[in-house]
């Protein structure tokens, strides 16, 4: 009998260059572990995240997508994360409206000092996605191996 392999979700984390990417680095500096399922993509600001990228990630096989940016009020570009917040709120609401699991996408504000929070957030997010299981509602069957 074949033993089914444990489900290892693919998680894409978009991190703003100034706060969250630095926060992720700090988590590394302090050797705080979080699952290898998380792969980080660096973007200049959370407002650079086009909803298209999130959909693209799901299409290509991501099981969860998380956006990390500076805390509201701390944006390097002053207002970027405020725009990102509105955009993501509406996008997530729409995805939920379409019946997509709402926990699959998340936004977290992580500052450059919050290495521990970054790791904790990722641990929690990966756990959530693992519990949700494979992304089947927004997958593109062609991209499955």
């Amino acid at each position, binding site marked *: 009998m074949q033993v089914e392999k444990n489900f290892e979700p693919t998680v894409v984390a978009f991190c703003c260059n100034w706060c969250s990417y630095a926060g992720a680095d700090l988590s590394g500096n302090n050797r705080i572990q979080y699952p290898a399922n998380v792969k980080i993509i660096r973007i200049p600001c959370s407002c650079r995240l086009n909803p298209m990228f999130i959909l*693209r990630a799901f299409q290509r096989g991501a099981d969860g997508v998380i956006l990390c940016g500076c805390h509201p009020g701390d944006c390097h570009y002053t207002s970027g994360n405020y725009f990102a917040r509105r955009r993501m*709120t509406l996008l997530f609401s729409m995805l939920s409206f379409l*019946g997509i699991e709402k926990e699959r996408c998340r936004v977290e504000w992580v500052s450059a000092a919050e290495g521990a929070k970054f790791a904790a957030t990722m641990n929690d997010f990966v756990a959530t996605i693992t519990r949700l299981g494979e992304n089947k509602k927004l997958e593109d069957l062609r991209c499955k191996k």
Partner: protein
Amino acid sequence: MQEVIKQKAIELLSSGKADRVLGWKEGEFFYDITPAVFTDVKEIEEKFVYNAFCGPNFSKYLVAESRKDGKIAVFLKPCDTYSFQQLLKEHRILRDKVYAVGIPCDGMVDIEKIRQKKIKGITGVTEAGEVLQIDTIYGKKEVAKKDVLAERCENCKSKKHVVYDELIGEEGDVLDSHRFDLVEKIEAMSEEERFAFWQNELSRCIRCNACRNVCPACTCEKCVFDNPASGIDQKAAADSFEEKMFHIIRAFHVAGRCTDCGECSRVCPQNIPLHLLNRKFIKDINEFYGEYQAGADMETRAPLTDYQTDDCEPSVILTKGDQ
């Protein structure tokens, strides 16, 4: 009303106030009316109509028409004026090239709804007050007009003309509509039910682009879906993902700019209730960021190009219960 508007069209053309008139032209039957640019008084006299089947929203035509030489007169129903103003706000229409005449509307009829009442072979429709008398190959039928109103007219949001050069008839008011009822109903479904609902709806999409091409908010010089460089260009969906992708992205692109004119659902050959996606955004925007009606004025910042420091967090979605 048709006569008044027709006379106005003739007057505008013959007085030189307008070089062209955008209006409705009669078809083979009572209901298959085509938008047309009239340049000739005789043609207006013969072909111009305005009845309960004059659904098309003219504002999008003005993007191209206002860039032609001369001035174009256009007849706008209350809801059309919102789209018109939104396009003005986005600098897509040159205002001084358009002479806008606001006209009253008491709801447009959806021929599909008449057909759904198993009325076949419709050859003529006469409006008699609240009742529509329908001639068919198989005899005469009657339906109440309110039963066959287009969805957007059933839930009419406003009888007010927000912009015009001239108004025919009385000015109406913004109405209390029940347009969000169905959105609420879907929101109240379970996640699986919602998924099944949309899967069923969106899987019918044949990607004819009618929704996009008719949408007054979709006036991009080059649509991302037609642009190979965008990375998301597609034609007919090759996977159920692409069906969703198209409609999510489209709804997102018009979020905060959609006036809820309902043209997308009117034109969908597969009767997909596309307006629900747009309305969901409108409802969310109203709830999260305060009431906003696209096209209602020229000044207010669109919700997605604006923010408040104390806006709700995206996690608000998590706490919005399924039931």
